[in-house]
């Protein structure tokens, strides 16, 4: 059966093609449209997934959308009734967007693809999330926990997956949402909602959770781990562009200025901020920023408490020891590891596009699994489901752009040249194979550097990616060496570590060995690299390890701040030319920065 899964109109639009229960191609629309978090109908992603399988829209058996638009309408209307007369603008904006396009999903899909309306199906938002995780996991039976901002109604769902069935046990509904709590804090800390949540996670280790008691005032957690937000502190139900209410600011003070430099006395004042302020001013600024770091740490701590509480409750009710996580909150890799460390769930699974883009995958898998005689035959072991480019396409691009390049004589020659460059402190744009599914670069569209050099973090942050200097970089490590560097027992069995979805402590004796990927609190977000899944990347790290004694690379996504990760050789070349990278590797082709 050929099923096209789609998600669009809210966060990250995506398309996923599943054939006989196996995903064959999937991509977020932003990778092709080059618009970060593009939420419009994923025309280009659909074109790609169909081309990848040699299909036309009429060859599809079914198209499935990741949520139920009328359920969402129900939530929005009820919410408007509940908040009357305080939210007229939310009402106006919602009605306009819903009635002009968002409830006409069946008609839009039918028109865009030319498929008959009766071939178009609808999954549930949280059900799609659950399916995206459980049906891609290696588990025959597992508990499932989905936490995000909001779907149609649900913000948190607990369930059990068994074979081809998912049983949703219970849910918590809007407006009580851990995702929206985290988003409100993101806004308060000076970042963009739905974009800056991972920056809060990166900021938290610079602070101490001193304000946990204040954060706890924002919500009440019940003995069964369900929770209720105190809506007096929030405004997301009353406004389209504000998440925090006046009372939130009375509790935490004024929000952090988006334009201010973030630093603490631990991080110091980096030279690229410009001239260091005088001692008095420096202390004052540091104190201000440290306060926000403490708030970030407190919010993160409370989120972790809630997530761990929900996981414990789910274990209590199901008795299961394997857990599938999904929803935007499942991208919080710090909280993910806390589940393993602090609950009876010792094996967990998260697929790399755990947010709304993953709904396209989940909807398709969910519909496949309710077909008569459905069987599970798939486990997601890697994220290479995007588009690959041929040597001819790459060479054509390089010639068209008038770039000087060389071609490696063999893979061994290529790896030798690249590892020599890395060892010599060069920063490399690495482009190989099909691009990754989800927001993480996992060795297919990555910027690579030597993790042993302390200065690499600052170089890559400020001259290559032009992003906030406090944000950490992740290490890619050979799977068999992971436990040598990270406090992660049975590392090879931890599936999320394949997709950089765990944050673990770097072993104390390794902090000084890989300083560029060790965060301020001694943690890292490692990617375990397996030879069978990404063979060329594995060989590269292995050779680097043979030369240096450290089988680890600094890996960050191949993009500039605010841009989607590169897709094509042309995107890679543009990014390369705009940044301070030294070498660009496009499959077997090498381009040195002029």
């Amino acid at each position: 059966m050929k099923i096209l899964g789609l998600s669009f109109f809210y966060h990250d639009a995506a398309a996923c093609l599943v054939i006989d229960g196996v995903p064959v191609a999937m991509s977020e629309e932003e990778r092709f449209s080059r618009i970060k978090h593009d939420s419009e109908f994923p025309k280009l992603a659909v074109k790609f997934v169909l081309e990848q399988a040699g299909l036309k829209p009429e060859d599809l058996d079914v198209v499935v959308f990741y949520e139920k638009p009328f359920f969402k309408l129900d939530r929005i209307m009820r919410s408007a009734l509940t908040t009357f007369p305080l939210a007229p603008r939310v009402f106006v904006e919602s009605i306009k967007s819903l009635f002009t396009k968002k409830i006409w999903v069946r008609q839009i899909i039918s028109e865009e693809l030319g498929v008959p309306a009766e071939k178009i199906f609808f999954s549930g938002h949280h059900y799609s999330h659950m399916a995206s995780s459980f049906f891609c996991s290696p588990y025959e039976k597992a508990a499932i926990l989905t936490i995000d901002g909001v779907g149609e109604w649900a913000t948190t769902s607990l369930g059990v997956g068994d074979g081809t069935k998912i049983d949703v046990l219970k849910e918590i509904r809007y407006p009580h949402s851990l995702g929206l709590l985290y988003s409100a804090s993101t806004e308060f800390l000076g970042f963009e909602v739905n974009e800056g949540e991972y920056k809060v996670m990166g900021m938290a280790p610079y602070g101490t959770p001193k304000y946990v008691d204040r954060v706890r005032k924002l919500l009440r957690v019940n003995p069964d781990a369900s929770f209720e937000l105190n809506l007096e502190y929030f405004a997301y139900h009353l406004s389209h562009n504000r998440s925090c209410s006046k009372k939130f600011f009375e509790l935490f003070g004024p929000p952090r200025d988006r334009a201010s430099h973030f630093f603490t006395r631990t991080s110091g004042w980096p030279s690229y901020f410009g001239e260091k302020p005088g001692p008095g001013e420096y202390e004052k600024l540091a104190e201000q920023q440290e306060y926000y770091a403490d708030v970030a740490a407190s919010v993160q701590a409370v989120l972790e408490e809630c997530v761990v509480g929900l996981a414990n409750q789910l274990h209590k009710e199901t008795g299961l020891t394997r857990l599938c996580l999904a929803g935007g909150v499942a991208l919080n890799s710090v909280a993910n590891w806390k589940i393993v460390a602090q609950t009876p769930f010792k094996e967990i699974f998260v697929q790399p596009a755990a947010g709304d883009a993953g709904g396209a995958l989940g909807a398709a898998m969910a519909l496949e699994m309710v077909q008569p005689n459905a069987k599970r035959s798939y486990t997601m072991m890697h994220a290479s489901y995007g588009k690959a480019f041929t040597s001819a396409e790459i060479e054509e691009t390089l010639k068209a752009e008038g770039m000087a390049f060389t071609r490696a004589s063999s893979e061994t020659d290529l790896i030798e040249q690249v590892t020599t460059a890395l060892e010599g402190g060069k920063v490399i744009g690495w482009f190989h194979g099909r691009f990754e599914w989800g927001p993480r670069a996992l060795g297919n569209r990555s910027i690579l550097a030597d993790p042993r050099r302390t200065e690499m973090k600052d170089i890559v942050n400020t001259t290559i990616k032009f992003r906030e200097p406090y944000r950490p970089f992740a290490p890619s490590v050979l799977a068999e060496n992971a436990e040598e560097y990270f406090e992660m027992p049975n590392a090879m069995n931890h599936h999320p570590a394949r997709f950089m979805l765990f944050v673990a402590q770097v072993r104390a004796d390794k902090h000084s060995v890989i300083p560029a990927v060790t965060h301020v609190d001694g943690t890292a977000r490692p990617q375990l690299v397996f030879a069978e899944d990404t063979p060329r990347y594995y060989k590269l790290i292995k050779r680097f390890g043979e030369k240096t004694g450290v089988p680890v690379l600094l890996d960050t996504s191949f993009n500039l701040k605010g841009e989607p990760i590169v897709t094509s050789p042309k995107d890679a070349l543009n990014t390369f030319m705009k940044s301070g990278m030294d070498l660009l590797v496009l499959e077997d082709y090498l381009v040195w920065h002029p």
Partner: protein
Amino acid sequence: MPFSDLWTTFKAGYKRFEKIMHAFGNVVSAVFLMIFYYTVFALFAIPFRLSRKKNAIPSSFEKPHATFGTPEAFREEF
């Protein structure tokens, strides 16, 4: 006035309306919806609010809204 003249007048008027809507469609629809919010919608919202003391939405675990055991469950938008 002959019918053809009426039709021409109507068409011209409609074209003008279309131009205004094109330029100010957002404002016109926003004003219309705002009026709707405080009049027709209020007729439903006020009794709804009065019938519920605090929050209309439960704050602890609820049973799921929908189940997806068969392909039929995926058929509709609701």
